[in-house]
């Protein structure tokens, strides 16, 4: 691993080829030291631009300012760098922020058919198509996407992932439900698969939010790392 650290400088100045860059970015996702180092080195490299200023032509300014008129600013990204949570309140703040920043928040799930012939339908499908189903989607850097859908009536929540990268060696993705007064309660460990649908164990109807953390193989009894994703269930209680 020490070898990949050495790429931080070349990464900071875009001097890696595509393969190296992809490898280093995977490393960055789990190495706060390298993230900090890259930020500092970029800061330093950027100052080299102080030695090369050139005034652009006035037409360029006009073109840029005309151009932005037709471009919608993106909503902020979901913050994943949160201090390790110890209390429910902090999760709630983070969860609320995550949803706020995700720009969408909970969205009512479209019901594609009216006849939910319960009993023969797998539970995940029942949740996904429940009349009271609510979904929250988060996009990860790199294109992965995860959607948590919960139904209070069914007391279940389901996560659907797309293009999720595999967890680091020896680690797993663990799911959590944020229960009032109890904090984050394990909702199971996710199997390793890029695209899958997983039912969260536990009482979704009382949960305030769901989260994903990276945990040692086998999972943990409470989160040991900051969450990589939080899905607020949109409860209005303060």
């Amino acid at each position, binding site marked *: 691993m020490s070898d990949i650290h*050495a*790429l*931080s*400088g*070349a990464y*900071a*100045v*875009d*001097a*890696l*080829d595509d393969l190296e860059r992809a490898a280093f970015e995977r490393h960055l996702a789990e190495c706060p030291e390298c*993230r*900090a*180092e890259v*930020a*500092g*080195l*970029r*800061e*330093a*490299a*950027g*100052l*080299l*631009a*102080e*030695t*090369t*200023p*050139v*005034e*652009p*032509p006035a037409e*360029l*300014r006009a*073109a*840029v*300012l005309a*151009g*932005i*008129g037709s*471009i*919608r*600013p*993106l*909503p*902020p*990204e979901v*913050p994943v*760098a949160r201090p390790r949570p110890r209390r429910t309140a902090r999760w709630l703040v983070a969860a609320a922020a995550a949803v706020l920043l995700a720009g969408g928040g909970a969205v009512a799930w479209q019901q594609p058919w009216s006849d939910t012939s319960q009993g023969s339908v797998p539970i995940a499908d029942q949740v996904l198509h429940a009349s009271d189903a609510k979904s929250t989607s988060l996009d990860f850097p790199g294109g992965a996407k995860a959607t948590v859908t919960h139904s209070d009536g069914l007391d279940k929540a389901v996560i659907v992932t797309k293009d999720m990268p595999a967890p680091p060696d020896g680690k797993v993705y663990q799911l959590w439900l944020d229960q009032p007064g109890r904090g984050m309660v394990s909702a199971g460990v996710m199997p390793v698969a890029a695209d899958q649908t997983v039912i969260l164990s536990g009482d979704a109807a009382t949960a305030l939010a769901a989260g994903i953390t990276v945990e040692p193989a086998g999972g943990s009894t409470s989160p040991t790392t900051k969450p990589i994703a939080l899905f607020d269930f949109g409860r209005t209680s303060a």
Partner: protein
Amino acid sequence: MDHIRPVESGGPSPEDGPPAPDLVDLLRSSGRGDERAFALLYDATASRVFGLALRVVRDRAQAEEVTQESFLEIWRTAGRYDPDRGSPLSWLLTITHRKSVDRVRSAESASRRDTTYQHHNQPVDHDSTAEAAQASLEARRVRGALAHLTEVQREAVSLAYLGGYTHTEVATMLDLPVGTAKTRIRDGLIRLRDALGVGS
């Protein structure tokens, strides 16, 4: 990361007019769709953005395109700027540099660069950049900091950042074993960072 301070060396003409606006505020406002704030952001940073793009891609028309693309991207993603991860200028220039490098690495311009490198690329060529940067105190400070680097570190950093070359290309250019250019780049940037007192 909390120690990174915005680098505010002022707009194009800091000697007259009000003090340079806070770039963090301008980015925030831009993220909310404030076109006036974005115009101020442009005015405060365009010469550095264009200068960097021009330094990397060399061709004026292409540098203008890269600058325009960069600012449109900055507008589009301003709401995603996170002050905890670096100064606004660093963020702007990271976007600009990435786009500049993408431009020069496209197959289309590869052949031209191969022929122009001999004539134009002078690693850390202080003399040729000095004219444009004469007025900038910050530029003087940066050049002073570059003196803390060994010659090979300076060349490696300059070829990578200002030249837009990969570390393996830099290794070949400087006759270094392939694995060592990335180390020179990193060591050089660390010295530069420490001499300038930015980052961690």
